[in-house]
Structures are given as C-alpha cells and as structure tokens.
C-alpha cells in the first residue's frame, strides 16, 4: 500500500511492548547541510541523560551535496559497536530517501521531512512526516539562516517522541557553540518549536523510548585524534610536522589548538615549548620530524595511508640511522585513494616493514580513546628509549568518531628520554664513546644531539653503511653486525611494548584475537555467543613486535579467530610468521567493507567457522 505525503498513517503491525534505551537512530542528510551539529547534539544529550551511547559518522569524501549518514546507538548494556539494524531512521535527504526507508527494521519508525515527495511503500513501520520548513519558519529563525538550522527540527521531534530531555539538548548546544548565546538560542529555538509541534501533532505508534540512567557518570566524550593529540602534549612533544589528510588532520589540528593552551613555558613565561609546521607534503613532514628527532626533540607527524606511502623512504632511514620519532597513522580504506572517508586496518603489514631492505618498525595499536591518550605520551618514551620510529596505528572510526571513555589520566611515569649523552656525561667518559656501540647488551647504543658543545660530541649520521663509530663503511662484516644488532633491538622492544589485553572465560577452548577499534564489536559478540553457550577468550594485541603473551594465548586455544578490518588478514599473516608451528590454530576472519566492525559480523563469522569445523 502507498502512503500519501501529507498525513500521518500508521502501520498495522506495530509491536506494543516498549523498548527502552536499546536501539539505533540513523539520520540520512546531505553533507554540508549542518547535520553534524544536530547529530552531535542528539548524541551528547543522550550521553548527558546517562545512557551509554555511541555515534558513527558515515560520510562521503565531499564538502557539500552528497548523502551522509550518522548512526547513534543507545545501549543500556553499554555495547558501543555499530549495529547493522536501524530501528529509527530520519530521512532529510531526497537523494537517499528510498534507501533510508528500506533500511528501517520491521516495527521501526521513519521520520522524514515532508517536503520530500516520494512514495512510501511500507506498512510494517511507523511513519512520521515532519513539516520541517513550517517549523523552522514558526521558530522565528531569520530567513537567511533557516537552511542551517533545518536539521534541528528532527532533534526536537525525536526529543518529544523518544523522550530526550530538552535541558540536556541545551547543554549539548552550549558545548557545541562554546557558550555563544546567539547560535545556541537560534538552534534551541528550532528544537523547542519542533518539540512543541510533535507534542501536539505526532501520534506515537512505535515502541521506542529513552529513559535517564546513571551509566555515563564517570565518562567523558572524546574522539581518538583529540586524545592522541592531548597525550602527545603530555608526552612533551616539541615538534609537529604534518600535511592535511582525512582522517588524520584533526590530530595535528588538535595539537595546534591544545599546545598553546598547555605548553607555554613556565620558566620563560609566554614562550612556546613547541613548534608546529604544516609541511609541503608528507615527504617533508616526516623529513622534518626525522631532523627534529635526531636533534633531541620529541617529534611527531600524523597522516593516513597515502601519506605513509610517501613516508616510506624516510621511515627506512630513521630505522637504519636510529632516529626516534612518533608517526600516527589514522587508517582509512585503501589501496590508493581508496575510500578516503571510510575506516580500515589495512596498513599493518605495510607500516611494520616500512622501508626497503630489511626494515622492522615498532607499532602501537590503541583500541580505545583512552589508549590513544596513553599511547600519545608513551610512544615518545619508547621511541627515545629504542632510538627508532614508533608508529601509532589508529583508524578513522577511533580517530574521528565520538566515544564515551573514562577521563584521561595524568601520566604517572616520568618522561624516559633514553640514552642521551650531554657535555657532562662526555667529560666523565673523557670523550670516549661511539654512536653505534652496544655497551649495555640491549642493542641500544648511546647518542648525542646537535647543540652538545663537547668537542667529542659530534658524529655524522647517514643512511649508508656505517661502523660503530658512525664512519662510512662498505665492509661486509660491519654490515652484517649492524643489521644483526638492529634485529636484536627489535627483540628488545618486545619487553617495552604494552602487553595485550586478555579476557579469559572458564573452560573456553576458542580464542579471538583483534586490535584497535574492533574492541567493542568483539566484546559484544563474545557476550552474545556466551549466551548461546559458546565460550570465547579474547586477546587484544596492542603492539608490534608481539609481546610474549600473544604466542602463549594462541598455544592454549585449539582455535584462534583473527578479527580485523582488511581483506588479506594482515594480523593473521604476521602471527603466522611469528608462530609457524601454530598455524593450524589460526583462522582469519577479515572484514573490509569500510564501515566499523559489528558484533553481528564477528558472531556470525565465528558461528560459521565453528560449523565448518564440526562438519
């Protein structure tokens, strides 16, 4: 049957039981229409109501005019992964209208802007046309600004229909507009008008309701890029060089915002203890960071896959010349330009061996926003301790979406500046030292940095073969010794890197191994499978080289499912290289559609694999 546009009709198979705080709201808009403000407002208001909530922005690589979606999940049980089911859909964009309509789950509800003229061929859902233009006009918004605030209509309608407290919406707007009363009042006016319209006209026929909880009291909302930037600020970053790229730009931009606030020199007041340079490209960005790291600064550059490709040459030099620096790779879907606004974990093997010849890099894998903060400062300690680049691999979902997370914690460990010799150290050594000589037996030599005025301080760094005294050498023996030491240094790293997060259930023989932003999907899938009687232990890898607990975990499970967001099972490949004797216990469950991992995928993939095994 077909619905007319101008009257509310209600489907005839609506469930009557109320569903509270356990559903998804997906909003389809046109990008560039200001929908981000509305979506974040809903998300933040729900968070302020104490309801566990997550938001995923599924956006195109475009500035204005293409369809974009935002999915908000509320979960009284605290599950924050993306869901594939959309119980509540808001359609504001004519171009995606039919698709949006199709995706509403049976018994779901569909809110749409009533100026969109289209047939509605569903009778299993609740349908709510919203007179968006009329409400905006009636709200008193000035004609010139009406287009920008039109999306606030669904905020107000949802508030009334689902039970979002208006006061919380006001708080969200205050935060969003940094207390500027004009835009706050303008947007809030539309929300109020829309809520009032809904109260009078919307006849609710769906089961979805929101009720306040107290589950977010000890949490903040933040994204991983902001967290990574702040962690770096507390890690004492001196030098940042970067080149704009989605989805990494906001990390460097956050540094540009927070460094002036937090890093004015307490001694020489008003002076900056940092410098940020926007480079001409990624080749220069990493070159600057290598120069800065070499001369004793805590140097950072941030990019995404295409930038990593360009950085390969300097990354190899930094590995070989033993220069500390931190590189954030906020991953997106590749190869090539790929899906620039979609998430992925496809740079793992590439960055691990970034550089030609025998190169092994150090990688940290934050899985939560809080870990982005922690690894933000810890990466510098590891880089300087090991005198090598440290890659921090985040992804678009973790980096750019808002997550509820425990507050950031002040680092309890002092900065570890590693083995650096200054003038007084060299005096004690009577100038006797060699740049690449391993005297501590950990394969990490001592270094000096430019600005050290001791006459024996200087050495010449190079990407060419060199002796322990940093002199040019093409001698085969010297070369073999040098590469062997670098390999051994990589082993030293194993004991410095963050250990895995392991969760064991009694009596489980099955393991699931993942990393990064798939954490919530894996956690939820494990709970769902446990409810079916399938017990699964989990290990979240947090670094490369693997810490020793990884092998131990694999060996005590008859099967280990490797969950990751790329086509080729890159983590699986690396696990096989390290554990060839355990290869029959390692099965890849790779997923690569560019959208954040869901519990359903993990659950169904494990069930299918288990079924196959049973046959």
């Amino acid at each position, binding site marked *: 049957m077909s619905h007319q546009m101008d009257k509310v009709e209600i489907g005839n198979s609506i469930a009557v039981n109320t569903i509270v705080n356990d559903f998804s709201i997906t909003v389809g808009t046109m990008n560039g229409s200001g929908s981000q403000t509305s979506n974040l407002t809903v998300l933040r208001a729900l968070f302020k109501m104490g309801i566990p909530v997550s938001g995923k922005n599924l956006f195109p690589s475009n500035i204005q005019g293409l369809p974009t979606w935002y999915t908000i999940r509320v979960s009284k049980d605290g599950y924050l992964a993306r869901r594939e089911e959309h119980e509540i859909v808001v359609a504001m964009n004519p171009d995606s209208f039919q698709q949006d309509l199709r995706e509403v789950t049976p018994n779901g509800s569909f809110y749409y802007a009533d100026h969109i003229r289209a047939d509605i061929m569903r009778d299993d859902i609740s349908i709510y046309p919203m007179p968006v233009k009329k409400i905006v006009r009636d709200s008193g918004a000035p004609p010139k600004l009406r287009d920008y605030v039109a999306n606030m209509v669904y905020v107000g309608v949802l508030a009334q229909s689902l039970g979002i407290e208006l006061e919380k919406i006001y708080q969200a707007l205050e935060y969003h507009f940094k207390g500027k009363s004009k835009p706050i009042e303008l947007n809030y006016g539309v929300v109020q008008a829309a809520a009032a319209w809904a109260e009078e006209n919307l006849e609710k026929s769906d089961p979805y309701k929101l009720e306040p909880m107290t589950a977010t009291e000890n949490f903040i909302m933040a994204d991983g890029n902001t967290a990574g930037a702040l962690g770096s600020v507390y890690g004492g970053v001196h030098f940042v060089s970067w080149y704009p790229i989605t989805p990494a730009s906001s990390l460097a931009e956050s540094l540009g915002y927070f460094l002036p606030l937090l890093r004015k020199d307490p001694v020489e007041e008003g002076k900056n203890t940092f410098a940020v340079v926007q480079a001409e490209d990624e080749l220069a960005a990493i070159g600057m960071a290598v120069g800065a790291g070499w001369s004793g*600064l805590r140097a950072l550059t941030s990019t995404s896959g295409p930038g990593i490709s360009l950085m390969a040459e300097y990354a190899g030099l930094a590995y070989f010349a033993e220069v500390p620096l931190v590189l954030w790779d906020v991953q997106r879907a590749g190869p090539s330009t790929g899906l620039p606004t979609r998430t992925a974990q496809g740079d793992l093997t590439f960055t691990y061996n970034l550089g030609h010849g025998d190169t092994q890099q150090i990688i940290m894998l934050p899985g939560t926003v809080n870990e982005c903060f922690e690894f933000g400062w810890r990466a510098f300690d590891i880089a300087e301790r090991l005198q090598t680049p440290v890659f921090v691999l985040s992804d678009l979902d973790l980096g750019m979406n808002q997550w509820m997370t425990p507050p950031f914690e002040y680092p309890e460990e002092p900065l570890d500046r590693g083995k650096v010799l200054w003038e007084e150290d060299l005096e004690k050594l009577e100038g006797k030292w060699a740049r690449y000589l391993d005297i501590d037996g950990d394969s990490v030599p001592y270094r000096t940095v430019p600005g050290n005025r001791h006459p024996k301080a*200087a050495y010449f760094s190079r990407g060419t073969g060199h002796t322990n005294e940093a002199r040019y050498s093409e001698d085969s023996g010297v070369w073999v010794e040098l590469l062997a030491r670098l390999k051994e240094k990589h082993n030293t790293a194993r004991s410095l890197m963050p250990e895995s997060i392991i969760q064991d259930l009694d009596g489980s023989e099955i393991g699931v191994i993942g990393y990064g932003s798939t954490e919530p999907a894996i956690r939820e899938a494990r709970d769902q499978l446990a409810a079916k009687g399938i017990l699964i232990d989990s290990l979240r890898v947090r670094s490369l080289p693997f810490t020793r607990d990884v092998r131990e975990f694999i060996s005590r499970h008859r099967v280990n499912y490797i969950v990751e967001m790329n086509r080729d099972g890159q983590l699986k490949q690396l696990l096989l290289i390290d554990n060839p004797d355990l290869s029959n216990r390692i099965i890849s469950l790779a997923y690569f559609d560019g959208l954040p991992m869901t519990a359903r995928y993990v659950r169904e993939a494990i069930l299918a694999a288990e079924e196959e095994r049973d046959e």
Partner: protein
Amino acid sequence: MNNQTIKTNSRVQVNIAGLSKADYRGNPTTLCQGCGHNSIASQIVAACYELDIVPEDIVKFSGIGCSSKSPTYFLTRSFGFNGLHGRMPSLATGALFADHNLKGIGISGDGDTASIGMGQFKHAVRRNLRLVYIVENNGVYGLTKGQFSATAEAGLTLKSQGTNPYMPVDIAWEALVGHATFVARSFAGDPKQVKALIKAALSHDGIAVLDIISPCVTFNNQDTATHSYAWGKEHEVALHELSYVPPVEEIMVDYELGENVEVTMHDGSLVVLQKLEREYDPTNRAEAIRVLEEANACNCLITGLIYIDTDQKSLDEIYNLPETPLNRLSQERIRPPRETIKTVNDMMF
C-alpha cells in the same frame, strides 16, 4: 658563541676561538681530483676558521650525490646528517628547531636541488630557514656516471647521453622568485669570492642560497659546457668585489667613498660590495631579476651577491621559542602540571 677551552700547542696558530685550522678540517676527500666541490669544502673550512666559529655551533646537512658526500670533508667536529635525495631541506628544518644558537650548512647538488628536491628547496626558501644552502652546481649527475641534470643547458652533448633537449633550471632565479632573503652565485674557480660569500651567508639570519658553479672534471668539463672551468673563467662577470667585515673589526678595506654598497648584517658585520664596472644594488629585487635575465641574454656567468634582504624574520624567530634551546628543556617545562588534566577532561563533553 660558546667558546671551548682547548689545549693547543703554542706553536700552532689559533683563532680567537682558540682553535687551529685543523679543528675545522674533515676527513680526506674521496671525490675526483680537481672536483670543484673540494675547493668549496676548503673555503668552508677557511671561512669558519677566520670567523672564529666554534664547529659545535654548526650543523651540516646534505642530500644524496657527489656534493652531498662533501660534508664529511669539512668540520668533523660539527654534527652532520647525510639524508635522502632531494630531502635535505626538510631534515634541516626539523633539526634547526632544536637549538636556535645553531647555524645550518646544507650542501646539495643540482640534481638534489633542481630535480628531485625542487619542492623542498623552494619551501625551505619560502620559510626563510636559518640555513646556508650551498648548491654545488655542475649540470650533471656524477655519482651515477654522467647523466644530464636539470641545470644542464639545452643543447649540451654528453658522452653516452646524447644531446639535452630541455631548458635548464636557474637555481638563483628559483630562489629569488621563491622569496629567498639571500641569493648569490659564484664559481668554484673563484675561491676568494666563494669564501667571502660563505662568510656573508653565515652572518645572514635566514636562508642564504649560494648557487656555486662547481665543475665536474670527469663528466662535464668540456670547454664549451657552461658548468666547466674554462667556460666559467672565460665568462665570469663579477657584479662587485665582495669583502666581509666581522662585527668587531674596524673597516680596513681599501676603497673609495661613494663607490660602494654596504650591507649591515644581523650580527653587526658588514658586507662591502666594491663597485666594478657597473652600479649594482643587491637590495633591489627587481634589479636582481633583471640581472639574471641579462646573464641569460649575454651568455655570461654573473657572480656575486645577487640579492639580500636583512629585514625578514627567520623561521625560528616566528615561533616565539624560549632562550633555552628546546632540546635542553627539563621535564617540568615540557609536561603540563598535574592539575591541568582536570581542566582538559572538563573541556571534553
């Protein structure tokens, strides 16, 4: 300048820094005998010695190629980094933020700068990085055995390469249009001028681009090639006789009043440009561009200080950095105090 007290043999001549010329030398060169680059390395040694610069106050950078090997042939007591092909400027940019008392000397070649490194070269120029950027320009790739570089003149014929069909890149011109604050051209066969220009460049607070024609005796030294010794000697037209007067010295150069241009450098030193055949004002950018165009037209090697602007801020001056070098800041100065974490958390939603 941070002077070191060093025991010296009383019979060895030392400069004001208490250092002998040996303290400025590098390892023996491994370049070809007669290579222009060796002559430039010697003039760097001489200039630093005569300026009483402590080698620890200099940091050397280079890219890849014959030219880029040469930083090992001077100032062994200075830190150095032989980086990647065409990527020396970025390396220097990051490194020089560590200690604003350091002065960078970057050595590059025409392949390293005008081909693979054109982008980084021009961006270092536009940022006014505090670097003496020397391009040892010979029109040819030496280390890979004699291919054309981007500064090779159109029509140049090289053994086993044929004839170059493309127009050359003019490094001084590129520097000038990229807003370089110090642009000079010289000739390795004119060591006196090279040394004076290096001294002036070391006193310049910002980027100093020295495009030095430095003949490759092995691959591109035929008399008709514009990067050869013979051609350079034949066609060099110096814009002026250049002398450098350190800040502490009285002006002892013998010249007639009114005949010269004097440029006061940031550190108080003077660059005196004694007039030769013509008037030339190196502070006039339009004139500098005209003179380069004229050099093309007359097929001559114009040398000297082509352009200088001492009023622009160098890169690190823009950044409002403390007196204490960034790489010497204590932990308390680079980690925000504990109480700020609450503020930060409050700033999140």
